[in-house]
């Protein structure tokens, strides 16, 4: 399979070129992060795409950051376990109930006088 050997060599040369001449991972991850929050400039997008061709860890950074983003958006619906967030304490519960009772009494009174 001489042909695949040549393709592999070309690919390696391309990757080395990208990694040596374009901005390093440290800058690329900033662009990847930003891509989740805003539209990238044409230059940023080109630099990022090229780098991702040559760099597996940055591809993982991108995929995992996307995952993090969707996990965070589902966090509210999944905080069911009291272990992690605790719950309203009994004192707070009573305090709030009393405050509500006082306030609804007043509200009913206002309604009655209308």
């Amino acid at each position: 399979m001489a042909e695949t050997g040549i393709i592999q060599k070309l690919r390696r040369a391309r990757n080395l070129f990208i990694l040596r001449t374009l901005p390093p991972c440290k800058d690329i991850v900033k662009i990847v992060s930003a891509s989740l929050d805003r539209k990238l400039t044409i230059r940023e997008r080109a630099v990022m795409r090229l780098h991702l061709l040559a760099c597996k860890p940055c591809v993982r950074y991108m995929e995992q950051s996307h995952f993090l983003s969707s996990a965070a958006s589902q966090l509210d619906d999944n905080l069911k376990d009291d272990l992690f967030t605790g719950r309203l304490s009994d004192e707070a519960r009573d305090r709030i109930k009393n405050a509500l009772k006082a306030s609804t009494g007043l509200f009913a009174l206002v309604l009655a006088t209308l």
Partner: protein
Amino acid sequence: MQTGETITVSVVENAIAIDPGTWVDEHGDQLFRYAIVRLRDESLAEDCVQETLLSAIQSLGSYGGKSTERTWLIGILKHKIIDHFRKHSREVPLDPSDTDLSEFDPLFERDDEFKHHWHDTLSPRIWRRSPDEALQENEFFGVLQNCMSKLPERVATVFSMREMNGFDAEEICEILSLSSSNFWVIMHRARMALRRCIEINWFMKGKIS
């Protein structure tokens, strides 16, 4: 137990019965969780829940029964929390350390010619456990929440407004009086720290899927 008077609110066609006395037992814990994840302070979260229910009583008339009672209450709570952040960010200026990315420098240190590329062993790993399955597990969200609780306060606030509430950069910068460049740095910091934290504490731990 007697929970208090039932207030009947007349909407155009139908009348709905709402009993604020039951709110604390029915929605209290959910509201509290919503608040504590964002505010990270128990008594502050309790106060916000109380204020929310009190303003809900005042604005019963505007509750048309279009959304569920829970959704309506969460909506009010969300505004209370944003008001708190707005006020707080005016009183407490941004700490310079909040926009400092140097804690990640070791992740991009190498001895060879590829300066500022990922360190061989500190780079993002191939996760051992499936991301899709993680989203089905309650325990995973506990890990994520725990990771968020380790972020500096302002960083966590920006991240939760962006990713949990879905505000865009402009809105967040306005509410928190942030420059847009500080916003990008803070979001990057949060993503770098959280990605690594869930990797270490969930995806590279336990069973291999």
